[in-house]
């Protein structure tokens, strides 16, 4: 026994040391990468806790200052802009409404479109799918003017529906749900038919629950995408009380730049506020996403 052990030792320590080095190397790369990603955000966060004079004189700060609460309070609740009708909280709410409306709308519409394409044999079904699919190639910017015309002539400028509805048709979503529905075994549909489930029941009772993980994934992507919309809200909203955060930050900065010192602290605080909800959504749905992936099996 002892013989075996002593001869084994030199053999096993070598590879172990190698593995350790690789581990350290891997971690070093990962940590550097994360720092590169996180540091700017962290610096914005720390800097947002100083007053404007300090930031203007001394630049970016690495430690927390004493103005944190004040800056965030001001960012959230002090009315700004030309008309003094909008504060950070209002913009946050607008952004949330846009983000949720956008994500939910896209998911509902694309699920229904994919359901029609996959499960109903109708003439030109495939053509319809490819037409939808090719719109993937056309970004919003290409169709933004006609969209604007339509929304304007419907009198939907400066309204939530006007902000959301023109954006919810989703080729990406339709495509992903189509792929997913096609992977659902045919027998499930047949079992449901024998069980007396019509098209509507099958969709609600079987397909929607099965798509949970897909919906969660889509929700993450679409919410962040909607939250970050800039061009469309900029065109659509002239009324400041309808501004979203992403659009509002810049507008407010411009106004305040006209005054003595730019409101750096405030701008940074708003930037942090604008970042938080998408991060929260990703974290929240990610755990859901993983849970769904591990629990369900078809």
């Amino acid at each position, binding site marked *: 026994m002892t013989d075996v052990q002593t001869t084994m030792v030199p053999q096993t320590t070598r590879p172990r040391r190698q593995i350790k080095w690789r581990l350290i190397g891997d971690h070093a790369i990962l940590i550097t990468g994360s720092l590169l990603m996180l540091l700017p955000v962290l610096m914005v966060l720390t800097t947002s806790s100083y007053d404007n004079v300090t930031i203007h004189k001394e630049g970016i700060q690495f430690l927390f200052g004493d103005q944190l609460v004040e800056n965030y309070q001001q960012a959230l609740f002090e009315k700004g802009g030309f008309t003094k009708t909008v504060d950070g909280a209002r913009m946050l709410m607008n952004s949330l409404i846009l983000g949720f409306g956008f994500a939910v709308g896209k998911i509902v519409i694309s699920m229904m479109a994919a359901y029609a394409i996959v499960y109903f044999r109708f003439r030109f079904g495939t053509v319809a799918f490819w037409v939808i699919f090719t719109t993937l190639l056309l970004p919003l910017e290409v169709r933004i003017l006609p969209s604007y015309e339509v929304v304007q002539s419907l009198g939907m400028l400066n309204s939530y529906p006007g902000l959301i509805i023109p954006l919810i048709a989703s080729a990406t979503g339709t495509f992903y749900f189509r792929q997913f529905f096609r992977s659902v*075994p045919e*027998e*499930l549909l*047949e*079992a*449901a*038919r*024998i*069980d*007396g*489930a019509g098209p509507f*029941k099958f969709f609600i*009772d*079987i397909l929607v*629950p*099965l798509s*949970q993980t897909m919906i969660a994934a889509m929700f993450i992507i679409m919410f962040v995408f909607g939250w970050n919309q800039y061009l469309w809200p900029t065109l659509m909203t002239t009324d400041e009380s309808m501004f979203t955060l992403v659009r509002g930050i810049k507008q407010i900065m411009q106004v305040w730049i006209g005054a003595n010192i730019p409101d750096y602290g405030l701008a940074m605080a708003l930037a942090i506020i604008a970042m938080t909800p998408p991060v929260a959504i990703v974290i929240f749905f990610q755990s859901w996403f993983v849970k769904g992936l591990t*629990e*369900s*099996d*078809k």
Partner: protein
Amino acid sequence: MANVTLDTVRKTYPNGYKAVQGADFQIHDGEFIVLVGPSGCGKSTLLRMIAGLEDVTDGNILIDDAVVNDVDPARRDIAMVFQNYALYPHMSVRQNMAYGLKNQRMAKSEIATRIEEAARTLRLEEFLERKPGQLSGGQRQRVAMGRAIVRHPKVFLFDEPLSNLDAKLRTQLRAELKALHKRLEATFVYVTHDQVEAMSLADRIIIMSAGQIEQIGTPMDLYLRPASRFVADFIGSPAMNIVHGTLGEDQASVTLADGSALRLPLAVNAAVGTKVDVGVRPEHLEAYSSETAQFQLTVDFVEQLGADTVVHGYQKGVENPLALRLTGIHAPEAGEILSLGANADHLHLFDSVSGERLN
């Protein structure tokens, strides 16, 4: 409880493929019918037409004397069990069984009693709250059967329900299925490509090949008097020995490929010179006597299975290898020549071209 009648039913798929070419038979009330045949012969297609999952191209399907061609699957009073179980993965076992009944707007208390009853029959009580993903293959298949049972259907349809299970479980569930049929006294239509399953379960077997029905009969009908060479070949393991030849002058002997004659202890009602296939099952070869046709089997190798022994060999002038099945343990040497015979009852003659039975 119901009769099912198929009246010259045909199925042509949209791509022009003729999957079923004239199915014409009646299934009696309470009968256990097994549809058997090689892969791709149209068994599932036929079953799915009875279920209403596939349109009938031509002909009529009747359940209890009512034409159901255009009746929705849910209204045909049938239940179906699929090969891959097709359980709803997001529902518990209880919900899986309840779903169809709920859609019929059945009272909650009635649903609960039926589920309890089915769970007791299938020994699923402890699994009722589990999801299908948390069950073994055999348990899932029992849930699928439970989902069928709770509907109290007139006809149960099974599409290879056991083929995803291992051999031992298959045997066990086969027995359970047989018992279930006895208890429920319902009409069962069961698709399989496994002849053992077919033989052990069926009251009557319908054997199909390439969209055609080859023969309908009890397992013993099919075994003892196969109507065609296809049936003869399909039923029985090891497969029937087939010897090709030409019918001789006296219509009671067959000339083999090397010119030697195989004398038959029976007269064949076919033209002299007809190409014929002579079949005899490995277990029906016995000691040669003057009353039997003579085979000279040169031993090639031996399979000892314990309960019986299968001797594989060949005969001069016969293209196919031959097999002999003996009960008990035997050990003939390779190269040994066995003189074997088959009596008239055990000889099957088929027309080489059409495959039809001649005797």
